[in-house]
């Protein structure tokens, strides 16, 4: 399997498209800045959000019990899934038991994480993704490349081609309004006909047993209110103690994500409507393990706003697919190694450790510090390439011994000769697109001894 560096290099080959991707996402970051600047209490809001999430994580079992009890009292069926397979099976069982064939799904990163669509397809069940971006990538048999903007890797001509093929739109008509209208007609038919609507959950309220789902398109609502069955899927970390805490999170979420003051729809589901069935599937899938890791647990605070994606100079220039996982970007780089350290050993290195991600995070996850800590973890676990290990140990050996270090540097600048990345030939990754620093005759130390030492 190709690693991030390789996939990124492939992405960057198309310079114009890379620039477009970078600039488009930077524009989203700027919108976020503007929205945040509008609130003098921004930094305070982040602190409140962080505290509420930390508190909830540290009292998870009691809030989960409270949530479950209230949801049951509301007439909702609550299911527990230890892992992705169980989550998928629970949903498939509901579908089977009712003989359901028409299913719509709004955006849920959890169902992406569990590969629900793929699982159901294998069982012969078709799911229609209803978020416009997700529908586009579904037509193309691609995963989303961004958790908030699933089709951000595509240009309008790509969408036009895809819609021409699947929705028979006019060939070459790239107008976003025209294309969106075509999807509107197509998806409204799907909503009206749907028997089951699957949604994600943005927040689950312990004190009321309700769940909140946020969209701009209205697709979660169109699906759930038309269908006879609603299944809401959530990782247990979506919990918050009280409804009043939604104020903190809803104020932060859309501003951080897209720079909007709030999403168009913030829907609060408590009871199924008359004649409807509502299910909530609560998923662990490795989360309880993360909860046990002091260095990494606060990644569970994430509210999936993707502000860290948009600000990340690496993500903007390497695209979502270079992370080869459902949740890409900086947050993905600290979450995925929990699930499979070997497969995702490259991700914590897909960062210059600039720290911008931690600064934009609305719930104050120490993302860049966790990236650094993951590097140590992966090294300890033996998940890094042997060549890197040999190189680093060699460097450490020399740099830990002053005489050896100076011996190397004395005549021709030790580093120039021995640090593998500073040697002038084509396969040297430093030299490929960069000149090397000139090696001066004298090191600073030599000069100091000659000129300054008393």
């Amino acid at each position, binding site marked *: 399997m190709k690693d*991030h*560096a390789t996939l*990124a*290099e492939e992405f*960057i080959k198309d310079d114009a498209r*890379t620039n477009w991707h970078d600039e488009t996402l930077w524009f989203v970051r700027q919108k976020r*800045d503007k929205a*945040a*600047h509008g609130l*003098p209490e*921004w*930094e305070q809001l982040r602190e409140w959000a962080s505290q509420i999430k930390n508190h909830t994580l540290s009292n998870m079992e009691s809030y989960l019990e409270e949530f479950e009890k209230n949801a049951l009292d509301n007439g909702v069926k609550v299911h527990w899934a230890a892992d992705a397979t169980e989550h998928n099976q629970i949903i498939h069982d509901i579908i089977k038991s009712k003989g359901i064939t028409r299913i719509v799904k709004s955006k849920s990163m959890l169902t992406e994480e569990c590969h629900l669509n793929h699982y159901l397809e294998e069982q012969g069940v078709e799911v229609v993704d209803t978020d416009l971006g997700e529908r586009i990538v579904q037509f193309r048999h691609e995963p989303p490349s961004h958790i908030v903007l699933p089709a951000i890797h595509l240009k309008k001509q790509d969408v036009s081609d895809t819609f021409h093929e699947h929705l028979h739109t006019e060939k070459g008509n790239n107008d976003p309004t025209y294309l969106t209208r075509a999807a509107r007609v197509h998806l409204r038919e799907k909503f009206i006909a749907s028997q089951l609507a699957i949604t994600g959950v943005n927040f689950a309220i312990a004190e009321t047993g309700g769940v909140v789902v946020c969209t701009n398109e209205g697709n979660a609502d169109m699906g759930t209110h038309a269908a006879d069955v609603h299944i809401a899927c959530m990782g247990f970390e979506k919990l918050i103690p009280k409804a009043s805490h939604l104020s903190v999170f809803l104020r932060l979420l859309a501003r951080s994500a897209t720079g909007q003051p709030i999403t168009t729809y913030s829907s609060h589901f408590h009871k199924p409507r008359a004649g409807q069935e509502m299910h909530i599937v609560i998923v662990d899938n490795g989360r309880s393990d993360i909860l046990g890791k002091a260095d990494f647990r606060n990644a569970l605070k994430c509210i999936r706003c993707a502000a860290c994606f948009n*600000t990340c*100079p*690496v993500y903007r*220039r*390497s695209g979502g697919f270079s992370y080869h996982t459902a949740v890409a970007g900086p947050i993905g780089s600290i979450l995925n190694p929990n699930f499979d350290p070997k497969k995702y050993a490259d991700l914590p*290195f*897909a*960062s*210059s*450790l600039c*720290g*911008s991600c931690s*600064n934009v995070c609305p719930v104050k996850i120490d993302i860049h510090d966790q990236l*650094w800590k993951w*590097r*140590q973890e992966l*090294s*300890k676990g033996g998940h*890094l390439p042997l060549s*890197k290990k040999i190189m*680093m140990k060699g*460097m*450490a050996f020399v*740099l*830990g011994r*002053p005489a050896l270090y100076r011996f190397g*540097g004395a005549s021709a600048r030790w*580093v*120039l000769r021995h640090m593998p*990345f500073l040697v002038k030939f084509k396969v040297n*990754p*430093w030299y*490929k*697109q*960069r*000149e*090397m*620093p*000139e*090696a*001066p005759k004298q*090191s*600073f*130390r*030599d*000069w*100091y001894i000659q000129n*300054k030492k008393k």
Partner: protein
Amino acid sequence: MKIALFIPCYIDQFYPQVGQATLELLTKLGCEVDFPLNQTCCGQPMANSGFAAASKDCDKNFVRNFTGYDYIVGPSGSCVLHVKEHLKDDQHSEETIHIRKHIYELTEFITDVLKKEVHNAVFPHKVGLHNSCHGQRGLGLSSMSERMLPAFSKPEQLLSKVKGIQLLKPVRTDECCGFGGTFSVFEEAVSVKMGKDRIKQHEANEVEFITGVDVSCLMHLEGILKRQGSKVKTIHIAEILNTEA
């Protein structure tokens, strides 16, 4: 006040003029500065690659060299930050803690500890300021575009007193240049793309020089500039502050 000069390994080997400028500048500002002769590297390249545990000898050597000083000052935000956050020597934990608490990047040492300005510097050029991430976001040398807090900049505060200088900031005032230590080689394509973009933004301001508090970022930008045949040069902030009429 006993001050030790910390000159990171790659500055020692490739950019001795930055070490010289730092030493001379501190001396001009009335400091008595010592250069511990057996210093090598802070251990950051290994640690950032996941091998912090393997750089024990570097850490020990660092503690051995820099014990017994009131302050340790270095012309690199990144290396200073690494020492502040990660220096580890269990056999000398008290000394280690003292070092971690008393190590400063050059500009913050001048503005916060010495509480001085640099008055005699002259640099009649158009200069672009690069905010290095570890100095800025790690050490807090300046306010950050992501945070909704009052604006300030210690490097700018010092540069603003330099005679004749025309300081220009690129759009995206504090985006990373893409160096990132070993990131620059293990993620070569992204690293260089980030550097090229940064350079484009500085070139749009028609600068003659790009300056900053970190030689490592400047080394990366310099490598790209030279390969591109650009006339723009890189210069460390100490070299500008150490100029005289």
